């Protein structure tokens, strides 16, 4: 699948489904960036509505960070325009008042306490010292640092640093929050807690969230919408489920014990709707089953496949019905774009 020339991919408009059905808080139109003659971004367009979470995906060098830096007014686009909460990119100072950003790698002044750090940023957004401090305490409580407000940030763990960064990003009650790899380097529990915080930001603050991540499972579980970029271009955009569905129609992935691979293949090939069965992925035991799909027949076929395997007394370790995973979509699309 190639996103080039497909207008629906080039200008995706979040449809207001689910919890977020608010106004457009972020509109990007044909954003481009060149470093000298080298293009870093070639026509980024998308829309994000309030209360929704947009996953921003792409391999290294795809243009994600450049896009984020343009949208957060750190860089100027070479062409194109964008709006944040109705404010045109011609007014970067006003845009900065309406966004919150957690950069991928950010430093913290080691000799400041958590509350001093958040208070400092609150003051830069125009709050008085007293109001900034009181607001900062609430935010630190919200991100789970209520017990460590007076500790020096130099003593914080990586997870706590991410949380204090998140509190800073929320200090101005932003309409759009940009999170660049927020769970990178966190342990599984930390990742889970931070994901929940991200959901809270979208749900309770009704902010649009742009989440850059390399963890595709994370994007799949947290995000409503997704934009996949490769070599500076958008190769897919839409609701997460739609994007997953677009990539590999009529493919089912089944995992069985490695010793039962041949037996499983023989059993599955007896089903008339099965076109092809082949080993999939590097992990032994995975089978990729291509089927003849018809509208509304997916569930019947899924049951039939499971039934055949169970009757053949083959243990089914995993079963991923049609649509596959975001990871497959990502790998397919980015591989095509690189070709």
């Amino acid at each position: 699948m190639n996103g080039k020339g497909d207008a629906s991919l080039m200008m995706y408009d979040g449809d207001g489904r689910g919890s977020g059905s608010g106004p457009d808080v972020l509109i990007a139109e044909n954003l481009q960036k060149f470093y000298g003659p080298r293009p870093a971004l070639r026509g980024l367009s998308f829309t994000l509505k309030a209360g929704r979470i947009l996953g921003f995906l792409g391999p290294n060098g795809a243009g994600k960070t450049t896009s984020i830096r343009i949208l957060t007014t750190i860089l100027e686009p070479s062409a194109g325009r964008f709006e944040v909460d109705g404010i045109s990119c011609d007014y970067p100072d006003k845009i900065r008042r309406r966004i919150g950003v957690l950069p991928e790698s950010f430093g913290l002044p080691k000799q400041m306490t958590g509350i001093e750090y958040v208070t400092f940023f609150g003051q830069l957004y125009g709050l008085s010292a007293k109001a900034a401090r009181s607001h900062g305490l609430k935010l630190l409580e919200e991100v789970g640092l209520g017990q460590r407000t007076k500790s020096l940030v130099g003593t914080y763990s990586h997870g706590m640093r991410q949380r204090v960064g998140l509190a800073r990003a929320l200090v101005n009650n932003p309409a759009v929050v940009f999170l660049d790899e927020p769970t990178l380097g966190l342990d599984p529990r930390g990742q889970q807690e931070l994901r929940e915080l991200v959901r809270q930001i979208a749900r309770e603050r009704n902010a649009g969230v742009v989440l850059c991540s390399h963890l595709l499972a994370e994007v799949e579980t947290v995000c409503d919408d997704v934009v996949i970029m490769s070599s500076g271009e958008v190769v897919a955009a839409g609701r997460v489920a739609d994007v997953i569905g677009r990539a590999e129609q009529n493919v089912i992935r089944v995992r069985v014990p490695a010793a039962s691979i041949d037996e499983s293949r023989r059993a599955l090939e007896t089903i008339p709707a099965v076109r092809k069965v082949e080993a999939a992925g590097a992990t032994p035991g995975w089978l990729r089953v291509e089927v003849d799909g018809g509208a509304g027949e997916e569930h019947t076929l899924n049951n039939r496949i499971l039934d055949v395997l169970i009757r053949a007394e083959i243990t089914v370790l995993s079963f991923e019905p049609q649509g596959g995973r975001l990871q497959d979509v990502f790998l397919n699309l980015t591989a095509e774009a690189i070709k």
Partner: protein
Amino acid sequence: MRPAWWVICSRELRDLWIGGKALHLILIYTVLLGIYAFLLASNAEVKLLPLKEMVLEMVRASIMVALFISLLIGADSVSGERERATLEGLLLTPASRRQIVFGKLLAAVSPWPVALAVSIPYWSVLAKGDPVFSQALLWGVVLGTLLAPACAALGMIVSMLCNSNKSSMLVSIGLYLLLLLPTELARPGRNPTAAEVRRAVAYQWVNPWDAASTLLGKTLMNDAPLRDVWVLLVLPVLFTVIVLGLVFLYGNRGVRLEAAAPQRWQLFWARWGHVPGLTTRHD
């Protein structure tokens, strides 16, 4: 509600003075000044120096070292934040680049009043009640207050142009030596030749450090009135105005995540790299 530059300046002051490098540099300054004052006052050979000359040497040293501290702090202000990855957070706030520059500049100048407060007792002790002390105080305050912002701004400009703190410091120290060394080396002796005098006069018109140093010499040693020496103030004032103007003009573009100068070099080399025969192309 406080303006953004004030908030930034407050944070910088706190970082610099609470266990930060300004405190350490001022402590070193105090010790060095103490040693120098002791040597001037007690060393048998230099004791032969007239009292006024001793005070002059002390004032010169105090100002030059204090200016060096401001220069170093200015040189760390932007490239240091780049290295510590704290600049992006600041750039993402509504504070304008000029407000950031102004806040940081004020903080970088802050060692000067402290250094002055540390120096005055030494000047007083060396002057031993001589009226030269009041001249030293007047011109020390005037010249230091004039040149400290210029030094801090010079360091900041270099800092905006460098991605690493190391290169920022090296370039700043190089510039400082470039200004200071001719002043020291070209200083005429007790019986200067005509060529030495011509060279010294020429330096006064191109080097603000030299102009300031000469002005100090004339006022402290010869009790020269203002009408005779005001012309020597022109260059330091001009230098300060130009450097401050540059830091605010360039600050709008220079305070950014990556320094512009290395990028320009990369573009330059990229362009030359495309000249056939110079490098291999990997298309």
